[in-house]
């Protein structure tokens, strides 16, 4: 044990120096750091929301709404296929009910042919599990009362949900962080959830507003066939809906249900000001297909109105004065410069494929976190000094000093590992840190006490040191393995958040503790021993 292999010496030196460098940003202020080339790109430890302040939001994708949307699409497809069939298959009453897309055939004798067409032309094959097994995306059946029903298969629903969550995740990222610079993380959790973590975010309300809005922009024609008294009574013909509008003159606008164009057809949008009235507006530009359709519609409907609808609410319903062929236009509707910018950002980021609901929300003001950090730092400092004094008193300058050096190196390495991996330090993480340091110190104490036992039994110093390390090692190994196992288990089970933070610090700590308590301590003791060849150890 006292003859330390050179590679071990190098390992200790290299790891310690690397640790010091990587952990340095935690101690050196940003202003100094920027001038030192090595430190420039390194970052300090990420602090969790409980320490730094910020917002944590967990969203759930509204699967029911998503499915309903998709079933509506499926009904459209079914109707199209039957219409285009040769000879044509007639149907009545199409709609979505009980999780199924359904329509009724006029002539029940067509059922077999209809099912066959639908199965081949509407349903697609989707991967179901591994081994190249596929199943139909929609299963079509004929009910006893003569309806043709289409239901999505389980695999299809799951895949659609996943896709929607992934899309939502991207849309959210574009909305809250167009430049991709902030520390905000947007992660999928499970199948239908998204977790947004915005450390340091001061204004969770704005964040929520930006994320939560579906931002589905649609263009509809206004229905002129509704009599004013029907409108007042809320009676509208099929295919027309009443949509609310922020206007005392016209609180509801009857519009055709079918959207002619949507936000998907936009190329770009930007906030600007109307050239005549100078009021804030949102300018937009359609892509080529959108521009063509918009041109046709405006040509055919001059002197009629169309409605611009955002998430089921009419923003504006202007008159078409002349055909708009250039594919660009502007939306005006009681905007402020800020709200115009917000809407255009939303439109640029795209619509969410399905509504999101918040199921967990946590927000901590930075000032509160700041107090926690300051108190934490102060108490860590005092505790550290006390432990240092105690160890020096208990084991003397040499052995006490060695254990404190090992402890400090351990702390530095943990900080370095956390800075490097970008893991967030949370309050329970601090507890994990304290536990780790306590167990690491315990390893030193175990080694020393073993040495003392051996000295008491009358062994020579060299042999006592040797036996101290090798006997204590078994105990240290057992203790650390149990910690590692428990930490890894917690990592796999715990939801993201405090407990995971605890498990992560513990995992890092196990490795650094074994490294410092064993290698660093051993190296220092061996150096001292070889330099002085003592007749007795100062701890006996």
């Amino acid at each position: 044990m006292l003859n330390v292999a050179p590679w071990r010496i190098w390992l200790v030196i290299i790891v310690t120096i690397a640790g010091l460098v990587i952990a340095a940003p935690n101690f050196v202020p940003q202003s100094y750091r920027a001038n030192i080339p090595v430190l420039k790109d390194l970052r300090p430890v990420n602090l969790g929301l409980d320490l730094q302040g910020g917002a944590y939001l967990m969203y759930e994708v509204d699967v029911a709404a998503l499915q309903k949307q998709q079933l509506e699409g499926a009904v459209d497809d079914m109707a199209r296929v039957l219409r285009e069939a040769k000879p044509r298959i007639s149907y009545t009453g199409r709609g979505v009910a009980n999780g199924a897309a359904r329509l009724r055939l006029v002539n029940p004798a067509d059922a077999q042919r209809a099912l066959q067409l639908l199965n081949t032309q509407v349903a697609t094959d989707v991967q179901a599990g591994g081994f190249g097994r596929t199943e139909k995306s929609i299963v079509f059946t004929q009910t006893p009362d003569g309806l043709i029903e289409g239901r999505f298969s389980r695999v299809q629903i799951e895949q659609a949900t996943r896709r929607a969550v992934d899309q939502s995740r991207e849309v959210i990222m574009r909305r809250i962080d167009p430049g991709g610079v902030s520390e905000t993380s947007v992660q999928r959790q499970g199948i239908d959830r998204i977790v947004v973590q915005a450390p340091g975010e001061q204004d969770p309300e704005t964040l929520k507003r930006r994320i939560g809005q579906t931002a589905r922009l649609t263009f509809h024609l206004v229905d002129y066939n509704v009599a004013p008294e029907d409108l007042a009574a809320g009676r509208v013909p099929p295919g027309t809906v009443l949509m609310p509008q922020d206007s005392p003159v016209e609180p509801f606008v009857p519009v055709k249900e079918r959207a002619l164009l949507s936000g998907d057809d936009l190329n770009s949008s930007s906030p600007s000001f109307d050239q005549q009235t100078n009021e804030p507006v949102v300018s937009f530009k359609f892509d080529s297909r959108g521009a063509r359709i918009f041109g046709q519609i405006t040509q055919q409907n001059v002197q009629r109105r169309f409605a611009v609808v955002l998430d089921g609410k009419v923003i504006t319903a202007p008159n078409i004065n002349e055909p708009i062929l250039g594919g660009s236009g502007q939306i005006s509707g009681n905007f402020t410069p800020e709200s115009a910018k917000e809407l255009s950002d939303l439109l640029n980021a795209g619509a969410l494929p399905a509504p999101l609901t918040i199921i967990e929300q946590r927000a901590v003001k930075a000032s509160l976190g700041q107090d926690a950090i300051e108190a934490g730092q102060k108490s860590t400092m005092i505790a550290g000094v006390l432990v240092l004094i105690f160890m020096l008193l208990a084991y003397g300058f040499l052995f006490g000093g060695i254990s404190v050096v090992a402890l400090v190196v351990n702390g530095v390495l943990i900080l370095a590992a956390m800075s490097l991996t970008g893991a967030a330090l949370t309050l329970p993480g601090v507890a994990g840190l304290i536990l780790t340091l306590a167990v690491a110190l315990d390893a030193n104490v175990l080694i020393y006490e073993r040495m003392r036992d051996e000295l008491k039994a009358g062994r020579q110093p060299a042999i006592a040191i040797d036996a101290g390390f090798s006997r204590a090692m078994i105990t240290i190994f057992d203790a650390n393995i149990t910690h590692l196992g428990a930490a890894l288990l917690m990592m796999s089970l715990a939801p993201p958040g405090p407990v995971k933070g605890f498990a992560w610090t513990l995992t890092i700590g196990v490795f650094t503790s074994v490294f410092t308590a064993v290698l660093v301590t051993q190296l220092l003791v061996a150096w001292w021993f070889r330099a002085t060849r003592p007749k007795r150890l100062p701890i006996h």
Partner: protein
Amino acid sequence: MWPLIKLLPEKTNFRYVALAPVLCTLSLLACLASLYLTLVPFKPPCGGLNCGVDFRGGTLIEVSTKPKMVDVGKLREVVGAQNVGDVQVQAFGDETAAMVKFETPEGANASVVADRVKAAVSAAIPGISFERTEAVGAQVSGELLMKGVIALLAGIGLMLLYIWFRFGLTFGLGAVIALAHDVLLTFGLFAIFKLEFTLVAVGSILTIIGYSINDKIVVLDRVRENLRKYKRMPMRDLIDLSVNETLSRTIITGVTGLMALGVMAFYGGEALFAFAVAMAFGIVIGTYSSIYVAAPILILLGIGKREGAQAAKASDDSAVQLP
């Protein structure tokens, strides 16, 4: 005189096991009492624990009206008028801040309700600021509770497996019963002082388990070693000897830990206080249970001496070679 370690007697001969019958009985009673306090009233999800919003669902809002004092009565009135369940308002610190807790009405979205309440509070009390908001939906809180419990049980189970593998079944059972004892008493502590039981509290319980298992391994490891050394010594004496031999280590590590945690409790601020207290409790209880729960169980389970010796032998064969 210095280093102080020399002050500790070279050899101590405390008869620990002699006290075991009394202390084991007390421990058992304390465990039963803790279990009772934790479970009764049998009301899901938390029984006698003062569950935070993490596990019960609902909303917690921390407000500040610095530098003015919080008008607790008005705050309670405004929140109460919002048609939410079980409103609790409590001033804390220098009374310029207060904690508001309430339940989400059946079927409503916790986050939406929280936003509505905050809007009402802002309107009624100008200048109030929201330092912290936590709104947890019922579905999420149920999952968190479930996952927390699973993490705890799985953690303890894993310890059992490992100690079984390394030390044999009797030792494993001894350590795990002692761990369960520590966890139960910690639950009891939370229940009796109505400390808020949150995800962070689960973190501190895990920390207690971590410290306790470390302590048990140290003691059991010494017992195993002595089993091999003194083949004919009665188990009682062997345990006394092992505990005496590890006493100086127990004292130094324990004192260091308690000292550091004491500082944290004093200067660490509100956030670290609960932690530091729980962990200090854990150090004391973990050290105690190594000596008075884990070790006597070896005797109770009718040691084991042979099994322990075998385990010692087995571990010689399979001893992991470390540097």
